[in-house]
């Protein structure tokens, strides 16, 4: 092992453990554990949200994809800003006002029912596990390259650290670590950018021009030689842009802030950060192709996941390589902690407390189950990651977005905006969307192989999203005469989702969250 990389990684890990120990004092009850006591400010949550997006999947996956495929890889990350604009417009504020600990809580405010809550919880677990696998693969590759240890050993160590952060620090710790990591990652990315452009005459777009000069203008164009690839990109972007509104670990972040205004502002703040980040990734990708070479990148990892760290080594030597790799590992740990909390919340709060025990669980027991669930989910994700080493992590991340787009997203959006929606429609939509998504991913080329695939697209969102919406509509039509399925009166629900200070709602929501939302709120309306 080289002493410098080991020292940098040890310092970063020690810092995150210190942050976790500090957060432990504030991680007292279930509210602290799941949603950081709903005390976070807009800037704190904005940094944490940005950190969730500028993850190993995007940094390693998109840089690698651009290095190997040119501008075609850039399209992997193009939809993120649009996805967050949709979050700001449609769900940030209502989720803050409706939810308590989990995504299912927000929907359950309108439709109470154990079947629906259980379906949302299972979907949350599936999405979170897939996304965890992505992060484990990315970080395992970097850690094994950096520390010269086996991939499996690296994944197990990272899994252990993630579990420690989750169990001890809860959402408070995960958020502090995420803020630390986002700041670190931004400094690292800007440092890498400065070093890269110092080699191209200080022209920020120099690596692109150099790539076009070396490899021809075709690297600046999107590859349209295969129509299946084209359809896949459209499907992938549908999944990313719409699926973000259903990603449990992102949506839970909106439950951690003080009020609806902070929820909106935090999403907007995060957008500025990852706008900078995602515009720099193609520059890094082309710089990697120029400085490292496509053959060397492919030889290190067929999916291109090593391009970013190889670029750091090529332009900045061992010091920059160690810094970049160390920060990537810290990045992954922070994202993993947030994912584990969202997943363990679904298992402990939704499945165990509300579905199995019908709410008859004391707070201490719920915390115990949540921590046990966090360990269990980590073990499952680690085992799956060991078999997914050679998959492009950006692709795999998009599978998670695609599943969210066809399950939790339609249910959350229709719950907030469609009066005619009901519990049966929500249940049909989420169960049908999840089933079709999983079936099509399994029948697709990334699981069955290109030659044997029954379904041609890697990302099935183009079919599964309309299917899920159609099921939501159909179920709602079928059950429109069933009074039990209609849930909370529409006027009352809307007033909770969009409180107005002129009605006297805002301050009470700000202080107490959804727990304070009582029926008399609507009676105070003019």
């Amino acid at each position: 092992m080289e002493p410098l990389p080991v020292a940098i990684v040890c310092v970063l890990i020690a810092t995150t453990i210190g942050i976790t120990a500090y957060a432990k004092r504030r991680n007292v009850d279930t509210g602290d554990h799941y949603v950081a006591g709903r005390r976070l400010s807009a800037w704190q949550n904005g940094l944490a949200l940005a950190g969730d997006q500028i993850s190993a999947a995007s940094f390693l996956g998109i840089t690698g994809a651009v290095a190997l495929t040119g501008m075609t890889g850039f399209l992997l990350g193009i939809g993120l800003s649009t996805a967050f604009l949709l979050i700001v417009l449609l769900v940030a504020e209502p989720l803050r006002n409706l939810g308590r600990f989990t995504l299912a809580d927000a929907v359950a405010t309108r439709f109470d029912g154990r079947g629906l809550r259980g379906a949302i919880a299972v979907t949350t677990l599936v999405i979170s596990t897939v996304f965890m696998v992505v992060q484990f693969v990315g970080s395992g590759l970097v850690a094994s390259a950096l520390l010269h240890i086996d991939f499996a050993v690296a994944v197990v160590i990272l899994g252990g650290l993630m579990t420690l952060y989750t169990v001890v620090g809860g959402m408070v710790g995960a958020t502090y670590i995420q803020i630390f990591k986002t700041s670190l990652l931004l400094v690292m990315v800007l440092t890498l950018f400065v070093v890269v452009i110092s080699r191209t005459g200080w022209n920020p777009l120099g690596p692109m021009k150099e790539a076009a000069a070396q490899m021809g203008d075709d690297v600046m164009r999107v590859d349209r030689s295969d129509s299946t690839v084209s359809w896949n990109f459209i499907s992938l972007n549908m999944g990313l842009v719409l699926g973000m509104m259903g990603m449990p670990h992102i949506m839970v972040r909106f439950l951690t802030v003080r009020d609806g205004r902070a929820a909106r502002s935090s999403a907007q703040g995060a957008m500025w950060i990852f706008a900078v980040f995602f515009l720099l990734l193609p520059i890094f990708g082309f710089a990697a192709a120029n400085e490292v070479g496509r053959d060397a990148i492919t030889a290190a990892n067929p999916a291109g996941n090593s391009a970013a760290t190889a670029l750091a080594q090529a332009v900045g030597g061992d010091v920059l390589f160690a810094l970049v790799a160390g920060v990537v590992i810290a990045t992954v740990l922070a994202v993993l902690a947030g994912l584990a909390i969202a997943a363990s919340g679904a298992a402990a709060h939704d499945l165990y407390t509300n579905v199995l025990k019908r709410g008859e669980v004391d707070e201490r027991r719920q915390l115990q189950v949540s921590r046990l669930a966090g360990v269990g989910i980590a073990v499952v994700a680690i085992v799956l990651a060991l078999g997914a080493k050679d998959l492009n992590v950006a692709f795999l991340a998009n599978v998670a977005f695609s599943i969210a787009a066809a399950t939790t997203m339609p249910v959350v959006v229709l719950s907030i905006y469609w009066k005619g929606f009901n519990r049966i429609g929500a249940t049909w939509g989420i169960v049908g969307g999840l089933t079709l998504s999983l079936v099509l991913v399994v029948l697709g080329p990334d699981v069955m192989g290109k030659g044997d695939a029954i379904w041609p697209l890697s990302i099935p969102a183009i079919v599964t999203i309309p299917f899920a919406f159609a099921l939501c509509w159909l179920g709602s039509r079928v059950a429109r005469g069933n009074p039990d399925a209609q849930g909370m009166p529409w006027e009352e629900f809307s007033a909770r989702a969009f409180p107005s200070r002129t009605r006297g709602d805002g301050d009470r929501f700000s202080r107490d969250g959804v727990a304070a939302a009582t029926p008399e709120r609507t009676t105070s309306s003019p």
Partner: protein
Amino acid sequence: MDHSVRARKRVALFGALATIVLFFVFPVLAVATPALDGVTGGIGVVYLIGIVEIVGATLAAVVYCRWADRAERG
């Protein structure tokens, strides 16, 4: 339903619809037509449009947040 809630929902839904339509024009044009195949000074038009999309979405979020803050205050 309260008038202010109705107005906020209307703006959110129309804004979201416009966002989705405007966004998807980009990947569809990029992967299905040669419209964005141009290269200017070694830089792909796809990247330049990507900058516009990313910065435009961020500015739209700023505008909406300011409007929503005002609407919330009444």
